[in-house]
């Protein structure tokens, strides 16, 4: 069975986690914030409170054993960058990072992300196409 590591449990992260669990996959959720982890705990396979920019913590997680790692940290781009970089350095198979702007996209690619997703850009494209056909 495919397993996913999800770092950063905010709106986007928790929605991804729920969908993956619905689809029948294993999800490990990680966040520094205890209340967020307590809230998601009953949904996901397992959850931990910890700092993903701490190498010791990532080592304990065993990041190379997950099929896909999501970095869905918002509000702190430096943490996003460092986490992405560390994950790749520790041999994560596939790292998908979330970006908030085009510069961030480029920076995340530079630090090793396999794929970068900019949810707002995706949604913007979809919205524009969805409503431009209307008359």
């Amino acid at each position, binding site marked *: 069975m495919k397993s996913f590591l999800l770092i950063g449990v905010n709106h986007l992260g928790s929605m991804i986690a729920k969908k993956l669990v619905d689809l029948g996959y294993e999800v490990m959720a*990680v966040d520094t914030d*205890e209340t967020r*982890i*307590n809230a*998601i705990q009953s949904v996901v396979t397992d*959850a*931990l*409170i910890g700092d993903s920019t701490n190498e010791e913590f990532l080592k304990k997680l065993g990041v190379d054993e997950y099929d896909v790692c999501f970095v869905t940290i918002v509000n702190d781009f430096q943490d996003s960058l460092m986490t992405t970089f560390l994950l790749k350095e520790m041999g994560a198979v596939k790292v998908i990072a979330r970006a908030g702007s085009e510069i961030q996209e480029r920076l995340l690619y530079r630090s090793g992300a396999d794929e970068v997703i900019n949810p707002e850009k995706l949604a913007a494209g979809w919205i524009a196409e969805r409503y431009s056909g209307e008359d």
Partner: protein
Amino acid sequence: MDWTRFKRKYSTFQIIIIGFAAIILIGTGLLMLPFSSRSGEVASLDCALFTATSAVCVTGLIVRDTASYWSGFGQAVILILIQIGGLGVITIAAFIETLAGKKLSVRERGLVVDSISAFQSGGMVRMTRFIIRLSLIVEASGAVLLMPVFCRDYGSEGVWMAVFHSISAFCNAGFDLMGTHSGAFSSLTAYKGSFPVVLVVCLLIILGGIGFWTWHDIITCRRHVRRYKMQSKVILVTTLFFIAVPAVLFFLFEFVDGPLPERISLSVFQSVTPRTAGFNTADLSKISGRGVGLMIALMMIGGAPGSTAGGMKITTVAVLFASAVSVFQRKKDTQLFHRRVEDSVIRRASALLLIYLVLVFVSACAISFMEGISMRECLFETASAAGTAGITLGITPSLGFFSHLILIALMFFGRTGGLTLMYAAISDRKAEVFRRPVETINVG
């Protein structure tokens, strides 16, 4: 291995444990010398190890009667072991080192802090000097006060008897030298009606059991009780409670046939001694089931932290009690004397209670199974060992080697303090890099 490397390799808790173990082994060796016993025979390993552990752990359980089996040399060895064990191996070592004019290193200070359960590392050297000076003063005055009675009864031997019993009482050990006079294993039963002896021994036991920090508060703040540390207030109040209440209970349902003054003296003494001295003036084998139960509870509770007493400590009981009260009142914080108790303290207290209960019960079951003795005697014996009390219903000498080993382990555990032993065993204290999420579980 040289000392600096040794210190770096082991944690302070491990060094405390190693210190106690080393003194026990040295004591065992000395007690096995031919001239340690009265008959000139070499004591068996079982007997020597048990006696040395009992002395260093200030318990007082014995397999051979101290006065009739051991020679003067053997008794002196036992007395020195009691003194070292009572004040703590580390306290004595630190004191000797400062006497030699050496300055304690930062690590050594840490060692002293952990071994006398201090709050901070400042003034440690002064504190060890204070502890040792005060102990010697109290023990000397105890011996002087006991001397008239003992010299009247035993002539010149009375001097040695007074010194021995004073130290033994102050260190909460409970070894006695009455065997050759009033029958083997008789403890202080011959003096049940002698008020000077009962009073002095009780006072020595209580002074030893309230702990060095409480003395420090009493001496520096004197009558200004408000300025005492919260811990000292808790210790004084609970000590008073655990003397008065059991004394009243003993008075109500034991010793009913004696005259009134003797009943009072017996009740008070039997209520002071289980926590955790180990003398007795009453014949314990004649005590009812209620009395035995009460004594088991008192032995497990023990004295104050940082004292010569063992057991799980009265402050542990006080903290758990306060915590229970806060639960009943649905308050978030546990309070004692207008101070908040940290959650980590409550967790430690409940862990201690649990290991004491489990250890005492499980080892009593094991001894009962191996020796075929009823649980009443066995529970009394294991509680006495774990609480380093040293009173017994008389089964100690007849137990087998493995039962003795269990008791030795319990005494060691009781003296070093359960948590020190656990911390020493589990030294890997890496910072936690993550925490688990919370999920509710129902209790009760």
